[in-house]
């Protein structure tokens, strides 16, 4: 009897308890309504009391959520179009405003955020060249957008934690011309390398040629000096020896020269027998 009572009581307690309390998770914030009217907002995680059937609660994810925007074409300063892909990290800042503005529907929040950020981003891109958006000012654009978008999103009870451009891509026809430009740029570099190689090559070859020419010329100089020395010494020796009898030297030298000059059957001599050689040619008497 008592044990049955105990069980009954326990069950009752559990039922009452579950009807009168609700829990808010660490990742959530809640709003408590009384017949649909907001009684309390921004309810923190933990166990909370409510009046069954009179109160009801709604919980919202309070974590940082991601809005991944579909890539879209944005015009730049130079009237070129680029694909921009970005994402927004946001969280619910004010649950009441959030609920009022969006009815607590995340899709609605996302589409509002998407509108806000896209317009702002378009504006920022239109002010800049592609180069500026790609390199230098990417971070600036993002920081400026976060501040700007937060003003608008405050009405939605949303805080934009971060807005990051994940991609900036050219459209296909621009890509094509970029590829051509890249090829041309590479070609320039390649030509430069080859030309510099040829430059160095020519320098090395010219230096080698110079060295060669100088070496040979120096050798020629030395050799002419040596030959001159030899010629001078020889001339001196001849002069010393032949000077002893000039007339006899002329005789012997002439005779040697004759022998060496006319020494082949191809040399044809047309003779008249009146030289000393032919003294006895036509007569045998002493002259």
């Amino acid at each position, binding site marked *: 009897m008592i044990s049955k009572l105990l069980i009954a009581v326990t069950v009752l307690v559990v039922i009452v308890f579950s009807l009168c309390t609700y*829990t808010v998770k660490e990742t959530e914030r809640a709003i408590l309504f009384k017949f649909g009217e907001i009684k309390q907002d921004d309810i923190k995680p933990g166990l909370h009391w409510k009046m069954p059937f009179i109160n009801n609660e709604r919980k919202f994810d309070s974590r940082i959520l991601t809005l991944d925007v579909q890539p879209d074409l944005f015009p730049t300063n130079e009237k070129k179009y680029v694909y921009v892909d970005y994402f927004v990290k946001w969280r619910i800042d004010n649950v009441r405003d959030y609920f009022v503005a969006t009815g607590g529907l995340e899709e609605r929040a996302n589409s509002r955020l998407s509108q806000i950020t896209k317009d702002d981003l378009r504006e920022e891109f239109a002010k800049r060249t592609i180069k500026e958006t790609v390199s230098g000012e990417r971070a600036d654009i993002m920081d400026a957008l976060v501040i700007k978008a937060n003003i608008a999103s405050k009405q939605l009870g949303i805080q934009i934690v971060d807005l990051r451009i994940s991609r900036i891509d050219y459209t296909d026809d621009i890509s094509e011309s970029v590829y051509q430009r890249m090829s041309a740029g590479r070609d320039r570099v390649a030509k430069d390398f080859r030309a510099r190689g040829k430059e*160095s090559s020519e320098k090395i070859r010219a230096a080698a040629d110079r060295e060669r020419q100088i070496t040979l010329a120096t050798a020629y100089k030395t050799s002419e000096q040596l030959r001159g020395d030899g010629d001078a010494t020889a001339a001196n020796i001849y002069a010393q*020896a032949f000077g002893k009898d000039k007339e006899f030297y002329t005789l012997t030298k002439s005779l040697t020269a004759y022998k060496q000059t006319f020494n082949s059957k191809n040399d044809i001599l047309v003779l008249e027998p009146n030289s000393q050689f032919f003294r006895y040619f036509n007569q045998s008497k002493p002259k």
Partner: protein
Amino acid sequence: MPWNSPGNKNDDPWNKNSNNQGPPDLDEIFQNLSRKFGGIFGGKGGGSSAAPSGGNAAGIGLFALIVAGLIWASTGIYTITDGEAGVILQFGEYKELTTPGLHWHMPYPIEELQVVDMQQVRSSKHQTTMLTKDENIVEIILAAQFRIKDAPNYLFNLRDPIVTVKQAMESAIREVAGKSTVDFVLYEGLEVISSNTKTLMQEILDRYNSGIEVTTLNLEKTQPPAQVQNAFDDVIKSREDLERYIEEAEAYANTIVPQSRGEAARITEEATAYKEAIVSKAEGEAERFEALLVEYNKAPEITRERLYLEATQAVYSNTTKIMMDVEGSNNLMYLPLDQLMQNNRAPSGSVNFGSPSSTSTTDNTNPRRSTRGREAR
């Protein structure tokens, strides 16, 4: 929940009412318990089984509650192993972080445990094309390894932490690449880019209090797009060409410079040889002359005559000769010199020629006769 805790049973108003005997004695409870046990295990053999009473029934109920309570409580026992972290939630609210070891938390639905693996290294890989500072397009494959560094942050701050890691990585690499030139991305700055990207990625993740730590970030591949691959390859080739041109030129230099030194040495040696030779020749000839001069001075006339005749003989015996023993050269004479030359080239060395005025052919082995023939005309 005082009625759920066995230790606070005395405060339970319903329990008190049902017993109506003041604070229940622990001994009595245990007696009841043992009796009940006897009833269960002893079956009908036990004499005490025939003594059902209100107190007994209350005992059974109490006992069941206690057992149920103990079992319920025991579901709160858990262990955290090394490399894990336990996150305790009390009614959904974050309460505490537990370290490795044996623990107990208040059982469900009061408290909940979430175990997070702190050591597991996850990885995220990403392949994409992007723009560089100089408006070139490059392809990059990068991979990041990351782990959880703060379990509560990881669990509570982001709805989709893994997706966020990927987004942070893509955004970071694009921002870093957008500030670098194409050469830097492709060749020179791989390490700088990966470390900058890692830093930026970590910054982004920290901004979200994601509780995630990027341990490594690798640029697995950076390459130009396929459309311009050839042009990029050509640059690499041109670098090689540059080296090659220089090598070739150096090879040329290494060949001709030593060669020219060799040639120079030859030129000098030849000149030295010439000098030695010409001096020796002069000395020899001078000595020969001087020796002859001594003999000449002893008999000048006869020596002169002899030398002259010997030399003339040597000249005449080696050459082709035509004797013209004609006084007064007003006769027109035709000498077929070219024919003579031609005949001389014949191995015999004999010369046939006809005198323009003579019909007879003369043998050149006897020049005298030929002149005779001419004379006779």
